[in-house]
C-alpha cells in the first residue's frame, strides 16, 4: 500500500529497529498491523485531503491566534541550590507550579554532565516537597564544572516544557586555591633548617646535619659545598653576598663533645666556615641578620646558656653583646629578630612549668638587641617558637596551637590574631577523636612591600593510636598582617597542602620567596601573581 503522504515520514515511524525512547522500545509497525487493510486504505484516502488542508494551513502559519493552540506551558524551573555546591552536594531545582512528577524523575529529563570530562554525573533523583533533588552518587573533584539540563518535563496537564533549561554550577573550591608555590629540586632528604638567597638565582640551604648546598640557577639544582665532622645542628643560614654567609650551629672542638654553640662565617661561598664566636655549653637556635648600607651586617641570635640567652653580633665592630642567661630555671630562647631600622628587636622562647607543661615568654628590645625587657603576654600563652618583624616597630610572635600575637616593641602592647584574621584554628574531629593543630614558627615580610608577608609553620593531624601526620602551612598576607590566606604548593598531594613541615622562609622581595623544611623540602614563589586554581584544575579526586 502506498500512503498518500510522501517523504520519509510517510514510511512510518521507526520500525523493526532497536531504538529506544526513554525506556520503551517503539514498535510502530507491529501496532499498525493490528489495523485492517481496509481501514488503513480508507484513512489513506482521507488523508490526501487532510494533507492538502494541512499544507494550506501551514502556509498561513503567520496567523495571530490559533484557536487550536494549547495554553502555553507556564512552569519554569529555577535553581534552589547555590551555584557552587559541595563536592557531593545536592542540586535542587524548584518549579513555580505543580508538575508531572514521573516525568521529572525520568533520568533522561534531568541530566547532569561533568563539563571537565564530558561524562554524565551518576546520581539519583528524588522529590523533597516541591523541590526536585539530584544527589551525586560519589564526591566530585574540587572545581568541577557541572551542566544541569532539564527537558521534557510535563505539567499536571501533560504540557511539556517547551525548551530545555540549562544551569551551570561548579563544585566548591579546594581548601586552598592559591597554588603559587613550586617545589625546587632538593639535593637531600635531611631537614632543611635554613634557606637564604642573594638574588633570584644564587642561594644557599643548610641542613640540620651540617650540610651546606648552593644553587646558582634559582633552585633548579643544588651542589654540595660544605660538610664537616666538626659542625652539626646548623640552622638559619644567612647570605650577605655570594661570598659571605653566616649560620649558627654546634661545633665539635676536638671531636669529643657537641655541647658548644657558635656563629659560623664563610667568606668563600660556603666552601669553608670559620667560627666567629662560640659559647660552651650553650645553644643557638636562630639567626636574624640585618644588612646595612656601607657597613658590615649586624645580627641577633636566640638560644640558651643554661637559661634563656640572646646575642647580638656587629660584624662592623666585631663586637658581641650577650643578653642573659636570665637565670630563670626552665626558660629557654627560641628565636630573635631585629627590625629593619636596627633599633627594635624581639625575642621569644618558652618557660617550662613542669615536665609536661610550658608557656611562652617574650622580650623586646629598643637598643638593637643589646638588652631586652620582658613582655607581659596574655595568660597561658602557648610556647612561642618564632618572631618576625612586620615593620620597624611591630613584630609577630608565633607559637603553638595557632598562636599569633602582634607585639608593638615600642609600647609592649600585644594583640592576638585569630580565626577572623585568617589564622587556622584547631579542628576537632568527633568521628575519630582526633584533631588538627597548627604551630607557627616564622614570619617574614617583603622588603619592597611591607603589606606582603608570610607566616609559616606546621599542621599536625593527630588521631589517637595513629602516627601524627605533619604538614607544612603557608599563610600569606597582603594587608600588612591584618588578614591571612592559606597557600598551597603546586602538584603537592592533598590538593596542594601535602608538603612537609616548614622551618625557614626567606623573602628576597614580593616576587621571590623561598621556604624550606623537612624531607629536604625547598619551594619557591617566583612571582607575586596569585596563581589560583581554576575550573578543572583537579581532574581526579
Amino acid at each position, binding site marked *: 500500500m502506498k500512503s498518500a503522504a510522501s517523504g520519509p515520514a510517510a514510511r512510518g515511524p521507526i520500525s523493526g529497529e*532497536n531504538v529506544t525512547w526513554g525506556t*520503551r522500545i517503539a514498535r*510502530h509497525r507491529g501496532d499498525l498491523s493490528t489495523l485492517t487493510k481496509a481501514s488503513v486504505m480508507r484513512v489513506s484516502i*482521507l488523508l490526501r485531503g487532510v494533507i492538502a488542508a494541512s499544507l494550506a494551513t501551514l502556509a498561513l502559519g503567520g496567523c495571530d491566534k490559533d484557536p487550536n493552540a*494549547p495554553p502555553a506551558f507556564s512552569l519554569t524551573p529555577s535553581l534552589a541550590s547555590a551555584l557552587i555546591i559541595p563536592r557531593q552536594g545536592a542540586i535542587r531545582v524548584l518549579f513555580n507550579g505543580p508538575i508531572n512528577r514521573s516525568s521529572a524523575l525520568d533520568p533522561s529529563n534531568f541530566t547532569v554532565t561533568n563539563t571537565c570530562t564530558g561524562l554524565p554525573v551518576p546520581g539519583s533523583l528524588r522529590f523533597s516537597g516541591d523541590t526536585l533533588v539530584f544527589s551525586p552518587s560519589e564526591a566530585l573533584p574540587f572545581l568541577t564544572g557541572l551542566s544541569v539540563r532539564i527537558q521534557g518535563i510535563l505539567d499536571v496537564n501533560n504540557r511539556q516544557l517547551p525548551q530545555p533549561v540549562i544551569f551551570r554550577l561548579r563544585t566548591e573550591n579546594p581548601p586552598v586555591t592559591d597554588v603559587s608555590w613550586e617545589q625546587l629540586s632538593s639535593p637531600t632528604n635531611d631537614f632543611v633548617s635554613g634557606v637564604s638567597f642573594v638574588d633570584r638565582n644564587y642561594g644557599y640551604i643548610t641542613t640540620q646535619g651540617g650540610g651546606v648546598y648552593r644553587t646558582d640557577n634559582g633552585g633548579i639544582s643544588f651542589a654540595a659545598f660544605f660538610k664537616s665532622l666538626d659542625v652539626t645542628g646548623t640552622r638559619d643560614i644567612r647570605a650577605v653576598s655570594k661570598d659571605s654567609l653566616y649560620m649558627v650551629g654546634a661545633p665539635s672542638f676536638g671531636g669529643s663533645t657537641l655541647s658548644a654553640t657558635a656563629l659560623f662565617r664563610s667568606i668563600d661561598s660556603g666552601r669553608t666556615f670559620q667560627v666567629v664566636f662560640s659559647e660552651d655549653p650553650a645553644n643557638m637556635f636562630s639567626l636574624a641578620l640585618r644588612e646595612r648600607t656601607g657597613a658590615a651586617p649586624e645580627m641577633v641570635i636566640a638560644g640558651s646558656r643554661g637559661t634563656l640567652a640572646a646575642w647580638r653580633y656587629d660584624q662592623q665592630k666585631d663586637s658581641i653583646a650577650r643578653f642573659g642567661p636570665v637565670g630563670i630555671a626552665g626558660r629557654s630562647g627560641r628565636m630573635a629578630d631585629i627590625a629593619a631600622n636596627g633599633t627594635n628587636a624581639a625575642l621569644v622562647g618558652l618557660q617550662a612549668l613542669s615536665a609536661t607543661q610550658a608557656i611562652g615568654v617574650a622580650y623586646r628590645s629598643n637598643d638593637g638587641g643589646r638588652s631586652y625587657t620582658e613582655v607581659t603576654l596574655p595568660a597561658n600563652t602557648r610556647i612561642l617558637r618564632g618572631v618576625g618583624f612586620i615593620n620597624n616597630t611591630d613584630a609577630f610572635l608565633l607559637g603553638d596551637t595557632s598562636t599569633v600575637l602582634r607585639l608593638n616593641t615600642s609600647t609592649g602592647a600585644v594583640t592576638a590574631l585569630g580565626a577572623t584574621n585568617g589564622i587556622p584554628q584547631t579542628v576537632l574531629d568527633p568521628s575519630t577523636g582526633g584533631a588538627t593543630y597548627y604551630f607557627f614558627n616564622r614570619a617574614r615580610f617583603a622588603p619592597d612591600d611591607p603589606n606582603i608577608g608570610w607566616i609559616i609553620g606546621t599542621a599536625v593531624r593527630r588521631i589517637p593510636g595513629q602516627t601524627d601526620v605533619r604538614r607544612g602551612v603557608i599563610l600569606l598576607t597582603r594587608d600588612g598582617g591584618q588578614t591571612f590566606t592559606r597557600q598551597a604548593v603546586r602538584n603537592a598531594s592533598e590538593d596542594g597542602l601535602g608538603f612537609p613541615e616548614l622551618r625557614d622562609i626567606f623573602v628576597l622581595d614580593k616576587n621571590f620567596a623561598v621556604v624550606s623544611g623537612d624531607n629536604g623540602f625547598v619551594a619557591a614563589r617566583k612571582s607575586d601573581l596569585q596563581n589560583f586554581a581554576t575550573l578543572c584544575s583537579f581532574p581526579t579526586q
Partner: protein
Amino acid sequence: MKYRTSADHARVVTAWSLALLLGLVLLLLAPRSVQAQQVVGGDFDICDYCGSLSANTMHLRGRAGFGTNLGTFVLINAANDAQDVDRDGWTSGVDFTNLYLNQVTDFGNVAIPSRVIASRNFVLSEFLNPLRNGFQNVVSVSVNIPVGTPAGLYRGQVAIADSVNRPGINPDGEQTRLDVFFVEIEVVPTGGAELVQADTAARLDSLVIRGRAGERASGVARIANTGNTPLTDVRVSVSDLRSESAVGIIIPSSRVTISPPSFSSLDIGDTARVTVAIDIPRGILGGKYRGTLFVQSANAPPLQVPLILIVTSSRGIVFENNPVRNTPGVARIAFNGDPGTEYKVLIFDMNGLVVYTTRGTVFAGVTVAGAPGTTASPAAGADFAVSVTWPLENGRGEGVASGMYLVVAESIVNTQRQLAQAKLIVIR
C-alpha cells in the same frame, strides 16, 4: 681394657686410627678463627647488618617516577681489634678524609638483565664525611626510579674508597681501604592505562563517530599501557547512547560492537587498537548521541571517556508511541530542526480539521555566560531535534476521539525547510 687376641688388638688399633684421621679431617675443614690484624695504611669497613644492610645487601623499595625509601650504611674506621668488623685489618691513628664513591654499577633487573636503572640515579643523601679513626659514619642513600621503569627486582653494587689513602691488600690477600655493598631495589608494580588517539599518542578526550541512519559507523581508539607492569584482563564496554537533544531517544549499547571487547594482557608500553562500531538505527533522528566508553582492567584504575555519535541524516517524524493509548495519554512527536529556528506542528483529524497546533523554537543552547545561542551561533547544549508533546486534547482542552490523526511538522533542517508528516493512531 685388656686385649684378648691379636686380632682384637688389630681391630682396636684400626678404630683408633680412623678416629684420629676423622678428627684431623674435621680440624682441617673447620673454619679457622680469623685473626684481626694491624695493616699498613689502615682500613675502613662497611658494616654488615648495620644500618639498612642485611648481610652486605641493602633492600630498597619504590615506585617508578619516585625515589626509593632511604637506606643507610655504616662506615667504620677501626682503631682496635674489637672495632674491625670485617676482621681484615685496622690501624690506630689513620683517618680517612677523602672518601668517595669508587663505583656504582647500573642496577640490573634480576629476571630480565636488559632492563636497568642507570647508576646515575643513585643518590647519596649525605656527604661521605671524614671518617675519623675509631669512629663510625652513618650514610643515607636512595635511588631515583625513572618514570616507566618496569616493576621487578634490580640489583647493583656500590663501592667506597679513599682517593688519597688508596686501596691495598692485607697479608691475607684481602682488599683493604675499599669496601662494597649490594643494593637491591624492588620497583613496585603500578598499573596505568590511557586512551589515546588512533594515529597519535595524544590523549583521547572523547571518541567521536559519524554516520547516517541505517549505516554501520565506526571509530578507533587505542588503549595504552602507561604503567610499569603488564595490564591484564582488559575489558572494553560502552553505555547506551542518549540523544543530546531534548527528545529522549536512546541507542542501546546492544547496537554497539567492540572489537576486540577484551584481551588478556597488554605489555608495558604497548598499545592495543579497539574498534567501536555502531549500527545506527534506520529512521533515527539526526543529531548527537552521547554515551560512555569504559575500559577496565585487573590492575589499573578504570578509564572512561565520552562516546559521541553524530547522525548526519535527518528523518521526518518519530513517535515515542504509536498508537497512543490512554496511558500515558500523551503523544511525543520528535523531528529534526536546526538550533534556533522556528518549527510548527499541526495535527489533523480524519475530517481534515486541525485539532491541535503548537509552535516553538528549537533550543539553541546557552553560553557559559548564560546568553542564549542563536541560529548562526549555537551555544553549548543546542538541540538538533525537537520533541513536542500532544496531550490528546484539542485546542479547547477537550479529549480527542479514537482514530487516526495526521501529524504535520514544519521545521528547518540543514538550513532547508522540511515538511514532514506521519500518521498517529489514538486508541482510547
